[in-house]
């Protein structure tokens, strides 16, 4: 993985929703480019369009206008099916509310993405176990999400995102539902994963979280107001 490789290349992204007769513009022209191995933060108040941006970057939604290249592939005009494949193969999601499947064990939750990929059951099991090991939850493989603490659940979610070795992990307010102590440990886990070469985008409104990012984009009313870069 060369450090100069461009993973995300978004130009002039606009997104508008039709709410009845009203047209709500969530994004009004956003440019973002992210390199391999980068740790990017996206900040903004609620309603600033940061969730929409994350959905577009994560291939959950398509932009109304603009071009979006993910790993060199233009996906602004691909079909729903191809978007699904992009999500299955290139993207890992981490959500504020963890979004684990309650009836599945930790191992099954982490192995879930493989249901929609080509790996065999055994391969899936091995890869899932390895991902669980990376987030330090090997001892909890057979527990149900309801038996875990919030921080542990988020680690499971991170393991699920990691398991398929994606190009990019997108985290939407990953510490939003956690206390400050646990938040810190999750953020340090992210930093560690980033050091191991994972490209991360974290959407947050917490300065504490943003302080760990190399680049932070500030979003306001559907536009990027400034981006700061640290080294």
């Amino acid at each position, binding site marked *: 993985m060369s450090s100069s490789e461009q993973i995300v290349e978004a130009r002039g992204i606009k997104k508008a929703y039709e709410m009845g007769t009203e047209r709500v513009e969530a994004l009004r022209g956003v440019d973002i480019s992210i390199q391999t191995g980068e740790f990017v933060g996206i900040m903004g108040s609620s309603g600033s369009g940061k969730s929409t941006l994350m*959905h577009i970057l994560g291939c959950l939604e398509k932009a109304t206008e603009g071009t979006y290249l993910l790993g060199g592939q233009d996906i602004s005009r691909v079909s729903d099916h191809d978007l*699904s494949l992009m*999500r299955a193969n290139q*993207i890992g*999601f981490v959500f504020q509310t963890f*979004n684990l499947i309650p*009836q599945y064990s930790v191992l099954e939750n982490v192995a*879930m993405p493989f*249901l*929609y990929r080509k790996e065999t059951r055994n391969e899936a099991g091995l890869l899932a176990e390895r991902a669980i090991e990376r987030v330090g939850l090997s001892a909890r493989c057979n527990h149900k999400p309801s038996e875990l603490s919030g921080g542990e659940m988020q680690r499971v979610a991170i393991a699920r995102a990691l398991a398929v070795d994606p190009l990019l992990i997108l985290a939407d307010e990953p510490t939003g539902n956690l206390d400050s102590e646990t938040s810190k440990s999750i953020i340090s886990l992210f930093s560690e994963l980033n050091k191991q070469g994972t490209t991360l985008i974290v959407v947050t409104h917490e300065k504490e979280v943003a302080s760990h990012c190399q680049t932070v984009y500030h979003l306001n009313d559907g536009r990027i107001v400034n981006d700061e870069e640290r080294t």
Partner: protein
Amino acid sequence: MKWSQVILDAWRALLRHRLRSLLSTLGIVFAVVAVVAMLAIAEGAKREILDQIDILGTNSVIVRTLQLTEAQQAAARRRLSHGLDLADVTSLERAISAISCIAPLKEVKASLSASTSQNPFEILAITASYQSAKGLGIQQGRFICNADVTWKNLVCVLGHEVSRLLGNDGRVGGVLRLENRAYHIVGILQERQWLRSKSSALTVRNFNRAVFIPIGTEVMGAHGRKEFGELSEIWIRIVRNTNVQASAAAIKRILIQRHGGVEDFQVIVPQELLNQAQKTQRIFNIVLGCIAGISLLVGGIGIMNTMLASVAERTKEIGIRRAIGATRKHIVVQFLCESIVLTITGGCIGIILGIGGAVIISKVAEWRTVLTPWSITTSILMAGCVGLVSGLYPAVRAARLDPARALRHE
């Protein structure tokens, strides 16, 4: 796509709502119970009729005396009819060339020392032709011959069970007392399979419990006067490859003529009864089909309802699955699989209950029931199809959900 995983997941999703799943599949259960039990009954009835026809012979015609009241008998006598008699037999034999075998029979009401009142032996007065007509096998001795009939010999042939029940008295060479006469036992029949008949039109005699005597030996003596309806029955076999119906019509015509226009008899054609039975069967099948169809329709609506509820309450899960890479097809397959597993489970429960029902029916109502692999496969396939059809709309609806919006759903 890992099928085993998908099916396992479907199971787990259904087990999370055990009661709801069970209740929603109840319609399918009832439909399958109805289908399995009714197919078993229908098949049993069909086999029963076929077996009876087999015994009676498809190319046979039976003429039976009708039970007339005293007044009707008097009216018939005035028109010079004496009911079925041996003269009828002779003239039928002479007039219709298609008759290959004709055997008259008279049921004799006489008390027999060894016969029990609950389960009396049947005493049948016959001619020698009865043996070949019914294909009776002789175990020991001989059957009644023409000379016995001509000379009115007091001889008798015993059914297998009669001989066994009489013990030492029931051997060839023994004597059987009938009313006030002694009949010499000249033969014993082989054991013969007998099926209890449920349709009154097709009475199958139990030859194992019958005593045969020469026709004519029973009327002399006590009563003296020839009673009305000398014969109870004339059994006629028609030559193969001829029209049985036409022959039956000819027989009827001749007998009416001979009886002075009085129809004091009944012509039964087993072949016709078979056709009748098949027609009834067809109606039964249509009714069965309608019941099953309605139950399945209602059951299917129930399943669709449950699946729609399931999709609605699992919107978030659908969002999660879509986010981690499930395509629309994956979601469709997941929910379809769930509804098919649900209905097939219902189908399996239905089959078990249906088989139980069939067994109970055959025990309690003494109806013959036959389970065919065909009926079970049909039921399962039917249940699966209902699952497929009623699960399709909810599944497609689940797949059409916008992933981003589904994720935001709480």
